[in-house]
């Protein structure tokens, strides 16, 4: 079977300008959305606070749950349905007595619903200090992964390729954050893991095309870089589609069957991989071209 029967000859380079505009538009929407939502919707991992997952024997009204939490001094708790007869309660503050947090919650629930009518399935408490630490570490991890990749690609290819790759990566992370913010998804540790995976996946994709550009550039010294890039993207197109497709299949499976905890993680990866494929074709390669126009390199004359 073949998706693409013969060699394709799409002019991707020509699409570079509209693509750049589209990307910038998405990112600007993202920034606007972040401002509108007053920053990312941080989960307790970063903002500090508590999260309690409770399963009830019977349907339970959220007001009753809220009252139970108010009785132990947790005002402003957010209660969210989480599967059948299951809720997720989130409170922004951890309370003063962190050591006695769990018994307090248990006592409040027992008075409100009676022992045995509920089950605390998960309870998480993150102090503000840890939250700040984790935020700093998450930002550093993403930036250092960019740097690490920049160095490796710069070493294996050329600096302008590395730069093209990195700009594509930054693009993917920003686009993903845009969609997370638009859908008001919560930022937690799993999302950061997803972002780093996107970084890894997107660069993987980019390298495949760069590799082809390098190979073609060595083969056809006289050809213009425009043509080489077009040819390379076209030659690797079937691979790009196939691999993205298999990754897409598994992500959809995770999204629908992976359970609640994995749900947002899969959502993030789906957005990220789409952006990753798009940026590989429309962002990374044109940037190499752009740099070529500013400062022609000696690569093409090398044997």
């Amino acid at each position: 079977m073949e998706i693409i029967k013969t060699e394709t000859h799409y002019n991707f380079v020509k699409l570079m300008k509209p693509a750049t505009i589209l990307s910038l538009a998405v990112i600007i929407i993202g920034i606007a959305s972040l401002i509108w939502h007053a920053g990312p919707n941080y989960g307790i991992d970063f903002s500090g606070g508590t999260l309690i997952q409770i399963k009830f024997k019977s349907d339970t009204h959220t007001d009753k749950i809220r009252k139970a939490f108010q009785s132990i001094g947790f005002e402003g708790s957010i209660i969210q349905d989480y599967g059948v007869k299951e809720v997720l309660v989130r409170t922004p503050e951890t309370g003063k007595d962190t050591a006695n947090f769990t018994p307090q919650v248990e006592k409040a629930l027992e008075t409100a619903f009676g022992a045995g009518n509920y089950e605390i399935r998960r309870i998480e408490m993150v102090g503000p200090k840890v939250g700040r630490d984790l935020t700093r570490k998450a930002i550093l991890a993403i930036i250092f992964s960019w740097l690490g990749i920049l160095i490796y690609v710069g070493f294996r290819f050329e600096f302008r390729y590395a730069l093209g790759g990195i700009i594509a990566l930054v693009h993917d992370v920003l686009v993903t954050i845009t969609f997370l913010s638009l859908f008001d998804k919560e930022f937690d540790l799993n999302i950061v893991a997803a972002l780093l995976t996107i970084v890894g996946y997107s660069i993987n994709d980019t390298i495949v095309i760069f590799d082809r550009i390098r190979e073609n550039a060595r083969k056809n010294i006289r050809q213009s870089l425009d043509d080489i890039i077009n040819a390379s993207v076209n030659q690797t197109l079937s691979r790009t589609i196939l691999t993205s497709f298999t990754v897409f299949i598994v992500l959809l499976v995770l999204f629908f069957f992976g359970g609640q905890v994995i749900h947002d993680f899969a959502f993030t990866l789906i957005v990220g991989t789409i952006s990753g494929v798009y940026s590989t074709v429309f962002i990374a390669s044109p940037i190499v071209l752009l740099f070529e126009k500013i400062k022609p390199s000696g690569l093409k004359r090398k044997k």
Partner: protein
Amino acid sequence: MLKSIRIRAAIVILLCLAALVYLAPSLTTSLPESWKKYLPMDKIHLGLDLQGGMHLVLEVDTAKAVESTLARSINDLKENMMEKRIRFKLTTNAAGGNAAFEFPDAPARDAFDSLLAKQYPDLEVASSGTVEGKGVATVKIKDKRALEIKKMAVEQSLETIRNRVDQFGVTEPEIIPQGADRIIVQLPGIKDTARAKSLIGRTALLEFKLVDEENSLDEALKGNVPEGDVVANESRLDRTSGQRRDTPLLLKNRTLLSGDALESAKVQIGDRFGEPHVSIKFNAQGATEFERITGENVKKRLAIVLDGVVHSAPVIQERISGGEAQITGSFTMEEASDLAIVLRAGALPAPVTILEERTVGPSLGQDSIDKGTWASIIAGILVLLFMIAYYRFTGIVADIALTMNMLLLLGVMVAFKATLTLPGIAGIVLTIGMAVDANVLINERIKEELRLNKTPRAAIEAGYKKAFLTIFDSNVTTLVAALFLFGFGTGPVKGFAVTLTIGIMVSMFTAVFVTRIIFDYFIWNRKMEKISI
């Protein structure tokens, strides 16, 4: 060529067998006895989010450790100066890591300076000057020494907590330091989380102090606490109402004997009421000391203070020799046995606070395992089918590689005792999707070569050769990202980085090395003329 195929195939088969051996204990419980003797019995290690349990991040208040060391030195210094008749006034007593002295004249100050230099190498004058004609000096612990104390405090806390957890009886607990002053405690499968937390988190500083019966408690409660005294509450269980009541007591602040002097502590049941209490035994030095203290203070009340709360304050009837005592205080059996544990394990050198707590119940963990397993199976089958549908024969080859990839990935995880978490399962599913990439790259390359009318043998040769560098470079960059993920991650996220990293490395092996053997076999041995790709 045929020999090379045989050798390579042998390597692959051996690796797969090794992986199966490592996986067997996780897959079945009915292994023969001889297996248990000679072969690995480790099961795949599940993270807390899958098997349920509690994850705690504790912070050791190291500043407090420095402060209490300073307080002890200052007490000693004070007594020393009084003995030497140096006139001084202590204005701040070690609070916040500084102690401030005031001197009436220059000779007093000089005497103080020389005493400090001679006998207190750990202390130094932080600042000095004159206020209203009087010389003042602030004393603190030297920075270098303070750092040592802080480090010691964390190490000692770690050791103490480890002891307590061991005695509490948790299987496979993990207690590791993090950063300068934090301790991570992981307790898999723990049910009574509140009890575990109080066991780990309490300081358990046991002190024996005399009750001050010369001064008025009422005056002290009004705020006029006499010099050298302290007010502490005695907690008592009211038998009729079943509630705890606090009664204030005025104590002399001096600690006569502390928990350091203990040799052992155990729970005993009282003869009369069948009530549990903790009986303690002092070590040799402690026993002598206890005998002296009780001998000197007959008819006075001796308070047994634990973390600032008086447990009991009995009247000393006579000199007690033998070095044994009892802590009573209307305990439940559980409380008494926990108290015995913390007393045996020793006090924490500084208070700890819980910064982070994550508890997952066992039912949620099982749910996650079920869902994760199903997602993996469904994803795996879909990708396998897709590859066959698209590539036919070559797809089957890629599928063999993918199946082996899963087998080796799980085998490596068991062999290296890596932890499988819920995001880790997601990492495995993602690996299924990404692992075929190498095969797609190779196959597409072979197709291109075939279009140039090359023979299958030449096309495969060229396809592998050209695709390999691409596969290598693209996977190394992904590894770079995974590495940072590992460095950043805690618990579950780290598990994701682990499966992703192993998955990528194994996939490079299976997708390139393994598939090539199969192709070579068909080309050389079966003289295949046409590849279905």
